[in-house]
């Protein structure tokens, strides 16, 4: 395998002080190659969202290193951080978190471009382009978020992440709030975007079936540590760690 696009080394993160100190990330390491999806599964409180935030450089970790495209980005600031942010974007569980209810969706999608100081005429063209790319029509840019269904709003949130042409997307439970038939549409979209742009994904989810569908490899997280990482089919068929087996056994399976 060529050098990974993202490499996380021994990342540590605690919250609180003294005896109340809680270790959210306890020496986490992972790698994601270009064009690859790494699925990250675990139950609530295991640290998966804290890890996602660390990778997004939204919260500087207490220890460890985050490398992107061969460079240490852990301590980036100022213009260098802004340039890095163009390459790594995030999609959240609740699309309403990334859409201002008072803004036309076109304006929300355009925001990252403004932050990147892209000229106005190009902004309009890029917004129209990305709306079509996520399966909406270019002329919806003037509408407010409340005029869209949950699934359409998640498409808009994905458009907002995609508009800066990132290389890496952190997807934090992007389909967990959606109905299964809508989830199917979003998963189909994510697969298509990845194949067309050779994107890398970190796909964070509590849903093993969904992760198994999308991910090339899966890491299982528990209590701030990654307990097992492996190719998706293998990890699901022959889990090695006891916790992975517990997790798999708990998933309600459809009768076959």
């Amino acid at each position, binding site marked *: 395998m060529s050098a990974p696009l993202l490499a996380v080394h021994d990342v540590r993160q605690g919250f609180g002080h003294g005896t109340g100190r809680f270790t959210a990330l306890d020496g986490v390491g992972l790698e994601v190659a270009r064009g690859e999806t790494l699925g990250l599964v675990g*139950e*609530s409180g295991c640290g998966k969202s804290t890890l996602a935030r660390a990778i997004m450089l939204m919260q500087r970790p207490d220890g460890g290193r985050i490398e992107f495209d061969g460079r240490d980005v852990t301590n980036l600031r100022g213009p260098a951080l802004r340039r890095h942010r163009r390459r790594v974007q995030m999609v959240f569980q609740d699309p309403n978190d990334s859409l201002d209810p008072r803004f036309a969706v076109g304006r929300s999608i355009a925001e990252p471009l403004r932050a990147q100081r892209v000229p106005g005429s190009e902004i309009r063209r890029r917004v129209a382009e990305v709306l079509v790319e996520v399966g909406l029509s270019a002329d919806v840019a003037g509408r407010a978020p409340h005029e869209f269904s*949950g699934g359409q709003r998640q498409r808009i949130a994905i458009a907002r992440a995609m508009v800066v042409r990132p290389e890496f997307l952190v997807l934090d439970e992007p389909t967990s709030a959606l*109905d*299964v*038939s*809508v*989830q*199917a*549409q979003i*998963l*189909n979209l994510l*697969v298509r975007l990845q194949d067309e742009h050779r994107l890398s994904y970190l796909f964070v989810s*509590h849903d*093993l*079936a*969904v992760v*198994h*569908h*999308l*991910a090339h490899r899966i890491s299982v997280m528990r209590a701030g540590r990654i307990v097992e990482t492996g190719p*998706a*089919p293998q990890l699901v068929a022959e889990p090695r760690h006891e916790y992975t087996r*517990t*997790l798999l*056994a*708990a*998933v*309600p*399976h*459809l*009768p*076959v």
Partner: protein
Amino acid sequence: MNPAPDVLELRDLSIRYGATTAVDRVDVRVGRGEIVGVIGESGSGKSTIALAAQGLLPTAADVEASVLTVAGHDVLDFSERDWCAIRGKDTTMVFQEPMSALNPCQRIGRQIEEVLLLHGVSDRAGARTRALEVLRQVHMPDAERRLRYYPHQLSGGQRQRVVIAMALAARPSLIVADEPTTALDVTVQAQILQLLREARDATGAGVLFISHDLGVIGQVCDRVYVVYRGRVVESGPSHRVLTDPRHPYTTALLRSIPRPGVAPRTPLAVISPEDHLEDVAPVLEVAS
């Protein structure tokens, strides 16, 4: 021999809000000791059916039915006062979010006792004994001490156990569970589902189980009703419905879920409202 009467029978039930039809001529029945699933996506009408079975519909709802029998009571013309006499006693409910069903300022033991005292099922001493008994029945660790806990001192799974204990306390004949495990982690969900099955086995209560999760329905339900846009499009034994779906909506729903046997990263089925699958003749298998 007379078969045991159903604990829930809704026949020809329609529920409208103004010009909007939320539930359209639906038949649902739950027998004693049966766990019956209602599966559907948001807005399908599944929760409206659950609320109708508990007399909890908003006053704006326009309800029509030929038969509405809940826990042996003909509730067609029930007033709120009538409902209050059976709700929490003969028919009980478990909601998705345990915190919204519990009083944060009251010890859980008290809350379980309240159900019994309110309905005059037992006196204070009896209620205390029964509270401990049901808390043990739902496998609350260290039940005796936990009676004195407040909800915030419990984990999410434990809170849902308390809610189920409250639902069991007065020995109801019908329990309506509306997405009881949706807010829980999968390992906790597995325990709660096991608990519901045990409760059914131990008490013979019928359970109406509302869920959007086909896997959960498959695991816990004897029979299932598939609702789509206010209509029951398919019903039958859950194993049959999930392995051999006969209505195009059920088929599409199953194909929209990533599952073993579906090649990873291949397109999943998409259900378009323009297909109007709710208009395709329903496939209703008569319950045995």
